[in-house]
Each structure stands twice: as structure tokens, then as C-alpha cells.
């Protein structure tokens, strides 16, 4: 299979270069005229040739190679006036275009009513985009819009649970999603223990999720790519906007550094839960509190016609302090956060060759400081990356676009550093750091074979090299060090994994309104999240592959039928997927993840399987828009050491999953949204028996005392009750002038007050001789309001 894909790729490359001499290329940037922001995924169509169409890339750049001649190009993007431009293509031409949002009256060659048909014609499948404006309009908890919660409303993507930002794509785990913010990996995307994500919607331009048919320029995770693009900042005028919610507020400043040349964006967000709660705390606990904050920063410079430079960064922290209200000697300080910095350079070598080069630094760390009287402890863990990558896009001719590039990351894993003192004992313990080089090269070809068939074939070669210095201690079966150690010198290879990842997407266009697409991907994952819970917590650790921890592996086969209706106003699709996975990781029950040098021996390794059918009907334009999604799926796991070796349902297996998102614009002031979700209850493991243990006789109360311990049987053999709820929201634009804009967002989460299960627990009542089951649910009907402004 892999050889065939490679041969196909080489053939297509040679074929295309041989016939590319008579062509010229028109290329350039596509931007929003109101603020200079680049437009991602806009359609550029040649009206004289039905099949000549392309889309602006992640950086707003487009390139079309055509035979010499006169053409009319149509630029269109949802929510914007389309623009028609006539050109006489006799040489390679640079054509930067600006289009206007629909509320602004368009000039000259603008026409209305054109719709996009990217979903029909592109070779991509299983890819969904959602704008930050859409995210902001959806009903929310506590007035905080959230990108990660919004994407769980799309088919094939499941929420980690009530109020959770964790998401699961096509039966994969939460660590199998590659989350990128301006190309920097986000290792922990959550604040507030998973209730909110780190993404401040004011700083975000759009979000793209690839859940299947992953192109060769992406890798490193099995299940999905979540690409979050930050806004660049208004390069026309200074602008300020923000919002005040029930638990957090945010503020963004942006503007030109030099008009049309460079701009900046600075955005911040902070919660005030700590201030709200403080009046209710006893005097001695005033030092307790929780808050988080985010800072997003971006600057871009247009260095010339061919060069653009971007500098962006993110810094976020969650801080939790606890000061014992009883014992003043007990203090606890716990925090975690991501920081990243990206320097990105876009260069146009010529009208056919575009490049994007990035240098990225990334740091995720966690700290715990404990004070117990005179004893003090400090524990730190984390992960640091240095990453350099280059992506090239070469338009060979009308039919071929080649993309190639490399990606190199140096990972440093810090599993735990402890220091402090207790009595005469001084602690200065450091778990051996772990180092790894992860390198990848890729090449892919988008080839339009004829008017009906097109292919996107790619190959990604990856080399993962875990290197020293490292000291591995041997442990006995009882978890104690034997004293035997294996040492690796600096740079010495501990585990080397070369892997090839073929990717193939095929598209057959039936007619202007419908197409069939299929894809095959093979992906490997070398970084693994050590977690024992379903959600991603700050104290979860990322680990590299080793001699014992083999790379996770997934193959995905997908096929889909895509159909547009009513001049592309409606998009419909049905996709089927089948995804077997190898080397999946689970932890033995009661494993200790934190500061455990013996973590590898707490792991078990097994297989996973996921398959399903996804339906989506989406209306993208008009007063009334939204989507209805339905997924039927099954996800299982099999581990020799768990469930007596028998296959069991994955915790987030959800047979039926429905989401309905409807938006209606009543007039210029009022708009409304409705969301309904339904999901089969999560698979869960419940106790089947119990026993009394640790017995005693209470002389004070004159009665026996003991502790009940639960006995569990089959893994995930029970189902929690089905999850469903409806939310509504309304946005009222209270003022909108050239200088000042303000709006209110009113939300009601869970309008019919459905008690959705968060977890179940049992309570034995010894006096009444009965055991009762209780279900805990988090959010009843929950109204919220937020105020947003812009000036």
C-alpha cells in the first residue's frame, strides 16, 4: 500500500513538471478591507473555467496557475461581498485583493449571491471551520464563549462531559488531538480544571478542525488537528474591544504600527472568582483563592511585496492558593500554564512558490508549593519544546500543487523536580529529565486528474529519537528500586523510531452540487499523556516514547458523500470512517502519576477500534443559518491486563450523538441562537458488590464501625443516562456607530433544566439497611449575561 502511494506521487510530480511550461501564475494575499486581516479559506474561482478554483491558505495567500489568456477571477468568502477582477495573464502576476464585509456597500465590481462550494470540490474531507464570531454568538455558561465547547457541537466530536473543554474525535483519546495556536502546540488547553479553554475568543480569528484525511503536512497525533489562528490586528485604525462576563472579563487593543504595513494585537483576560468569593471567606482563609489569566500578543510586519514577518505569543496561568482556615501553618500554592512564542516568516519566492517558516518556543509547566509549619516542599514538572518548521507550496500548473516541508522539534520533558526541607531531611530530588528529537519531512501533491477526479497524495517521514542523558532505575514487582541503573550519555539514542506515514485523499465530482471523497491515513504518535481520568488535568504528564512505550499508531479509512443545495446555500454530507489503533495506553488502577520515576511500569498497552457514520446538514448563509449533525458510532478498547483481556467500550463511546445549532437574525439589533444536543450516556464502570473491612468497635458510640469497599467487575459495562439539553441565547446590539459598538449577550444554558449525569455514587445507610444511588449533575438551568464593546 505504502509503495503504491509513493509511486503514484512520484508519477504525478514528473507528469506535471513536463507540461507546465506554457502557464503563468496569478497569486497574492486576500484580506478584509475593513481591518487588513487575512482571510483564510476564501474561494478564488476562474469564471471561464468551471474546474479552475483554489482557496486561500492558512496565511491568506492564494495562487492559481493558468494558461496564457484573459480571465475573470471571482473572490468570495462567507459574510463578505464577492469581488470580480478581470486580468490578462501574460506573465506571472501578483494580485493582492481586499474584499469588504457585507455591511459595507461594495464598490465597483462586487456582486452578491455567490456561494462557496469548497466542500464539494476540494480534496479535503472531514475538515470543519468555525469562526470566532460564530463561537461568540452561541449560548454559554457564565457568559464565557468557548471555542473548544463550540467544536463539540460538530459531528464526530464528543465532549469530555458536562461543562468540559475536553474533546474526543472519532473514538480517540484527548491526547490524540494536536492543538495548535498560531502553530505552537498547546499541551494543556484548559483553564479552571477543564471548564474553560485557554482560547480567548477576542484574540482568535478562526478555528479549523481536521478529524480525518489528515494531510501530510500535519502529524504527531492520531485523531485530529485543531488549528487555532490568532487575529493579526487592525492595520487601518486603532480599535479596542472587550467583554464583561459573570466570572471573567477581557480586553483587546489593536491597531496599525504603520498603516497598511504593520499592526499589533494585545489581548488579555482574567477571572475574578477570587475577588467574588473573598468576602465570604473566614479571616484566616483570606489567602485562599483561584484565578486564571491569559495574555495574547501578535505583531506583523509587511517587509516588502514578498515578505511578511509575524511575532506572536501566549502566556496563561491558573493559580490556586489555599490557606487553611483552621491551621495558619498550612499553606498551599498550586499553578500551571502554557507559554509560547512564535516567529513566523512568509516568503513568496515567485508567484508559484510560497513558504512559511516558523521558530517556536513552547513551555508548559506546573508548580506546587506546600508549607506545613517549618516544612516546605516545592514540586515542579513540565515540558519544553524548541521547534523549527518550514512549509513550501509550489503551484506547478493548473492541475498540480506540491507542498513539502520539514518540521523539527527538540522536546525536554521534566517529570518532576522536588525541593524543600522537613526536619533534618533536605529534599533535593529530581526525576531524570527526558529528551527527544522529533523530525519530519513531508511532500504532498494536490492533483486534479481530470474534470471529475482529483487526488491529494502525500507521504510523511518521521524520525523520533529519544536520547540521553538519562538514568533508568530498575524497580522490583513491589515498586521499590533494586539499585540497578542503566545510564545513557548525552545524545546517546535510547529508542529510535523511523516511521513512514502515507496519506491519500481521492475526490470524484459527480456534478456541480455533489461529490464523493475517500481518504486513507496512517499516523503515529510519539508523545503520550499520562492520565487516569477522562478529562485532561493540569497534573497529567506528557511522556515520550521509549523502549517500552511504543509509538501509538492509527489507520483511518473514510468515505463521504457531499451534496450542496440551493446554489450552495445548504451543505450536506454523510461520512463513514473505520479507525483501528495500536499501542494504546492505559494506567493500572490507582497508579500514581505525580512524581513517579516508575511510571512506565504502571502502564498497560492495548488496541482500540472506532467506526461510525456522520451526517451533517448545514446552512451557512442567510438570516436563518446553522447546522444539524448526527453521528452513529462505536469505540472500543482491548488490553490483555484489563477486563480479563476482553474488549470493552471506550469511556466516550457514544452510539448516538445529535447536535442542532440554529441562528436567526431578527433585525439589525436582535439575533438569536438555539442549541440542542443529545448523546448516548457514557460507558462507565460501576461496583457490582461490596464488603466490610477495617473493622472496629467504637467505645464512645458503643457500636461497630467498618468501611465498605466496592468490588468492580467488567470495565465500562454500564451506561450513564443519556445526555441532552437545549440552550438559547440572544444578542442585542445596543449601539452601533462608526466610533462605538456595544452589545449584550443573554444566555440560558439548559433551558428545560435537564439533570445530566456528571457521575453516580452510592451511599449505604447502615441504620436503614439500604443502599441508595445518587446522580450528581453540574448545571441546572443557568442564565448568564455578558456585555461586549468595541471602540
Amino acid at each position: 500500500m505504502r509503495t503504491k502511494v509513493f509511486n503514484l506521487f512520484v508519477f504525478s510530480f514528473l507528469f506535471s513538471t513536463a507540461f507546465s511550461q506554457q502557464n503563468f501564475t496569478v497569486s497574492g494575499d486576500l484580506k478584509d478591507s475593513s481591518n487588513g486581516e487575512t482571510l483564510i479559506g476564501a474561494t478564488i474561482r476562474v469564471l471561464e473555467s468551471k474546474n479552475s478554483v483554489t482557496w486561500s491558505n492558512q496565511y491568506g495567500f492564494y495562487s492559481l496557475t493558468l494558461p496564457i489568456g484573459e480571465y475573470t477571477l471571482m473572490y468570495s468568502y462567507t459574510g463578505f461581498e464577492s469581488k470580480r477582477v478581470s486580468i490578462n495573464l501574460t506573465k506571472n502576476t501578483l494580485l493582492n485583493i481586499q474584499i469588504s464585509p457585507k455591511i459595507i456597500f461594495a464598490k465597483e465590481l462586487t456582486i452578491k449571491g455567490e456561494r462557496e462550494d469548497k466542500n464539494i470540490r476540494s480534496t479535503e474531507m472531514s475538515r470543519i471551520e468555525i469562526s470566532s464570531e460564530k463561537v461568540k454568538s452561541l449560548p454559554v455558561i457564565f457568559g464565557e464563549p468557548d471555542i473548544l465547547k463550540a467544536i463539540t457541537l460538530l459531528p464526530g466530536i464528543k465532549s469530555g462531559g458536562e461543562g468540559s473543554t475536553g474533546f474526543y474525535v472519532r473514538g480517540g483519546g484527548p491526547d490524540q488531538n494536536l492543538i495548535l495556536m498560531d502553530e505552537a502546540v498547546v499541551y494543556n488547553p484548559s483553564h479552571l480544571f477543564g471548564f474553560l479553554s485557554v482560547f480567548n475568543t477576542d484574540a482568535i480569528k478562526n478555528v479549523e478542525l481536521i478529524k480525518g484525511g489528515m494531510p501530510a503536512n500535519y502529524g504527531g497525533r492520531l485523531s485530529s488537528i485543531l488549528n487555532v489562528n490568532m487575529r493579526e490586528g487592525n492595520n487601518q485604525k486603532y480599535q479596542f474591544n472587550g467583554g464583561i462576563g459573570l466570572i471573567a472579563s477581557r480586553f483587546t487593543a489593536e491597531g496599525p504600527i504603520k498603516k497598511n504595513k504593520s499592526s499589533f494585537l494585545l489581548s488579555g483576560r482574567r477571572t475574578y472568582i477570587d475577588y467574588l468569593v473573598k468576602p465570604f471567606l473566614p479571616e484566616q482563609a483570606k489567602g485562599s483563592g483561584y484565578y486564571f489569566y491569559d495574555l495574547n500578543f501578535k505583531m506583523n510586519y509587511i517587509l516588502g511585496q514578498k515578505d511578511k514577518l509575524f511575532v506572536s505569543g501566549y502566556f496563561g496561568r491558573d493559580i490556586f492558593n489555599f490557606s487553611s482556615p483552621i491551621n495558619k501553618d498550612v499553606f498551599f500554592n498550586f499553578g500551571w500554564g502554557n507559554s509560547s512564542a512564535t516567529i513566523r516568516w512568509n516568503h513568496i519566492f515567485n508567484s508559484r512558490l510560497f513558504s512559511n517558516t516558523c521558530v517556536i518556543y513552547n513551555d508548559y509547566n506546573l508548580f506546587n508549593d506546600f508549607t506545613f509549619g517549618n516544612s516546605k516542599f516545592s514540586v515542579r514538572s513540565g515540558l519544553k519544546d524548541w521547534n523549527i518548521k518550514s512549509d513550501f507550496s509550489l503551484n506547478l500548473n493548473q492541475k498540480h500543487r506540491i507542498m513539502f516541508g520539514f518540521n523539527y522539534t527538540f522536546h525536554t520533558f521534566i517529570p518532576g523536580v522536588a525541593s524543600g526541607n522537613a526536619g533534618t531531611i533536605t529534599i533535593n530530588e529530581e526525576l531524570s529529565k527526558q529528551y527527544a528529537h522529533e523530525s519530519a519531512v513531508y511532500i504532498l501533491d494536490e492533483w486534479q486528474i481530470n474534470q471529475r477526479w482529483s487526488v491529494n497524495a502525500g507521504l510523511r517521514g518521521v524520525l523520533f529519537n529519544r536520547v540521553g542523558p538519562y538514568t533508568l532505575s530498575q524497580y522490583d514487582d513491589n515498586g521499590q528500586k533494586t539499585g540497578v541503573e542503566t545510564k545513557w550519555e548525552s545524545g546517546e539514542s535510547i529508542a529510535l523510531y523511523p516511521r513512514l506515514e502515507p496519506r491519500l485523499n481521492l475526490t470524484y465530482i459527480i456534478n456541480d452540487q455533489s461529490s464523493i471523497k475517500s481518504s486513507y491515513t496512517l499516523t503515529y504518535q510519539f508523545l503520550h499523556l499520562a492520565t487516569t481520568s477522562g478529562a485532561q488535568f493540569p497534573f497529567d504528564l506528557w511522556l515520550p516514547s521509549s523502549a517500552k512505550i511504543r509509538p501509538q499508531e492509527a489507520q483511518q479509512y473514510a468515505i463521504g458523500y457531499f451534496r450542496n443545495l440551493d446554489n450552495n446555500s445548504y451543505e450536506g454530507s454523510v461520512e463513514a470512517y473505520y479507525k483501528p489503533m495500536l499501542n494504546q495506553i492505559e494506567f493500572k488502577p490507582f497508579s500514581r502519576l505525580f512524581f513517579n520515576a516508575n511510571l512506565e511500569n504502571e502502564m498497560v498497552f492495548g488496541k482500540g477500534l472506532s467506526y461510525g457514520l456522520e451526517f451533517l446538514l448545514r446552512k451557512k448563509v442567510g438570516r436563518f443559518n446553522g447546522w444539524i449533525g448526527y453521528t452513529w458510532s462505536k469505540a472500543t478498547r482491548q488490553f490483555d491486563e484489563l477486563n480479563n483481556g476482553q474488549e470493552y467500550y471506550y469511556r466516550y463511546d457514544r452510539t448516538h450523538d445529535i447536535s442542532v445549532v440554529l441562528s436567526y437574525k431578527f433585525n439589525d439589533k436582535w439575533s438569536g441562537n438555539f442549541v440542542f444536543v443529545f448523546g448516548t450516556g457514557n460507558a462507565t464502570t460501576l461496583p457490582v458488590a461490596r464488603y466490610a473491612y477495617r473493622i472496629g468497635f467504637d467505645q464512645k458510640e458503643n457500636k461497630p464501625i467498618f468501611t465498605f469497599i466496592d468490588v468492580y467487575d467488567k470495565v465500562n459495562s454500564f451506561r450513564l443516562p443519556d445526555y441532552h439539553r437545549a440552550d438559547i441565547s440572544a444578542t442585542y446590539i445596543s449601539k452601533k456607530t462608526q466610533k462605538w459598538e456595544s452589545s449584550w449577550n443573554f444566555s440560558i444554558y439548559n433551558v428545560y433544566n435537564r439533570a445530566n449525569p456528571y457521575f453516580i455514587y452510592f451511599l449505604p445507610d447502615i441504620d436503614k439497611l439500604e443502599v441508595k444511588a445518587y446522580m450528581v449533575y453540574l448545571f441546572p438551568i443557568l442564565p448568564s449575561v455578558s456585555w461586549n464593546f468595541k471602540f
Partner: protein
Amino acid sequence: MIKKTTYLILTLITSTVILSCEKEIEISIPASQSQYVVEASINTRFPFLNYVFITNTVDYFKPDLSLNGVKNALVFITPGIIFGSDTIFNDTDRIQLIAIDTLAKLIPALDSLIGSFSGVYMNPILLQGKENTPYRLDITLMDGTKILGRTTIPKIVPIDSFSYRKEKVINRKEIQAFLTFWITDGPEKNNYRMAVRNYTDSILYGWGAADFYRTFDDELLNNGVRPFMFSNSWDEGDTVNIYFSQIGRKEFLFWQSFGQAANNGGPFATPGSVKSNITSHPSNSVIGSFTGYALDFKQIILK
């Protein structure tokens, strides 16, 4: 005004989120296969804490919440001798443990325990644990099931000293006392289990009678004088009994997993099992532990 609004918002949020977050549900759980459960302990100080309790697992919603003790078992504990890497148990040294119902006729102090503790076997007259000594547990049940356990009482690590300070704490009527004690942890690998009981009588009738427990090892804090500071407090005048033991590694793993199983609740509960250190024939029919405690004891009156 702002403060009032803030209070109102906060009250609304907390009342809706907290007050309405739980309800009773009906759930159907199938019958399970019963297993024997054994809790066995031997220590160096208190004969009443040397006992074997045998019970069964019961179906989850079975209305019988009693201890469900197993009667008519033959229970023996045999001390052993270590010769180099070998451990020798001589059957002539074995001590039979007697059902508490029978024993109460000989020891009137146990009379109040009859009824509550059927399935408990002990021999406070003959059975006394010693430091650095291995012990074997043999149980034969009426249905022919044989249960075997082994433990070793390690060296006692004594409580070196203690101190406490007293202070007035908000919302507490009585003056509160905050207690710290110290031990000297040696260079070897040590595993500890501590039980603490606030009561004037120093005798603990069963390990379950303590107020709280800690199980820990010296992986991070090894070889030195080590303090234990209690984060909670006691009222001035309380009597605090500290039962501080060194235990073996397998016993540590059992009690560590027991602690996790006993506090295993909430949304991220792990469906795990305790790490038993006893076996049975037929196999897989028993859960539990045989633990040897090298026990030191301190009674502290917080005057």
C-alpha cells in the same frame, strides 16, 4: 451598590449550581459471584489488635449491611524463623485463633462485641507479635476453601518526641492544639502505617476504631529525623493516641490501595481493586491482607 450586586450574582450562581446538583436514581446491577474477604493483623504491642476477620462480598444493593462474618473456620497463625534466605515455619508452633463468640465466655470484656463481630477470630492470651519475625496464616473454611497468608513484622521505628502549640481559632469555642511528632527514619527502605484516635482509653478494639489513618513510605524523605505535623487540630484537653507502625512492602501496597479504594468517589473515580497479599485454593476466591505491625504507641494529653 456594586457589592450588593456582586453578592446577588454570586448567590444566584452558587444557589443554582450547588443546591440543585444531586438526585436519587434507580439503577439495576446484576448479581455477582461471592468472594471471601480476610482482614488479618498481628502486632508487637496490643493483643486485642491481633485478629482475623473473615467475611464475604455481597451484592451491591442487598439490604444486608451487617458484617456478614464467616463462622466455623479453622484459623491458625504460625511464627517462623529466618535462616538466611529461607523462612521456616514449624506446625508445632502454630497458635489457633478462636471465634469471638467462644472467646467471650472466657474473657468477659469481649462480651459486648458478640453479635457485632461474628467472623472475628483472635487469641489475646497466646498470640503476641515480635519484631523481625515472619508469620504464616492458615484458614480452612467449611466449604473446603483454604486461605494462606504471610507477613513479617519488621523493626519498630519509635516516635522520638512530640510537641504541640495551642491557639484560639475562629469559629471554634475551645482552644485548639496543633500536634507535631518526630521519628528517625533509617537509611533502609521503610514503609509506615499510622492510626490516630482521640479517646481516653488507649486500647483500640480493631483498627477500624481509629479516627484517621496514613500510609506512606520514605521514597522522598529518607534517612533523617522526620517530622509529622497534623493539619487538623484537637480541642485543648483531648487525649490523642498515636499508633505508629512499620509494615512490610506488600502490606504497604495493600493499605495504600485500600486507602484509595476507600476514598474512591467523585467523577474521576478509578474502578480499582485492593492489592491483596493473601491467596486461596481454589484461586481468586479471596480478597484481603495479613499485616504485621511493628507498633510504637504514644498517648498525648493536650493539656
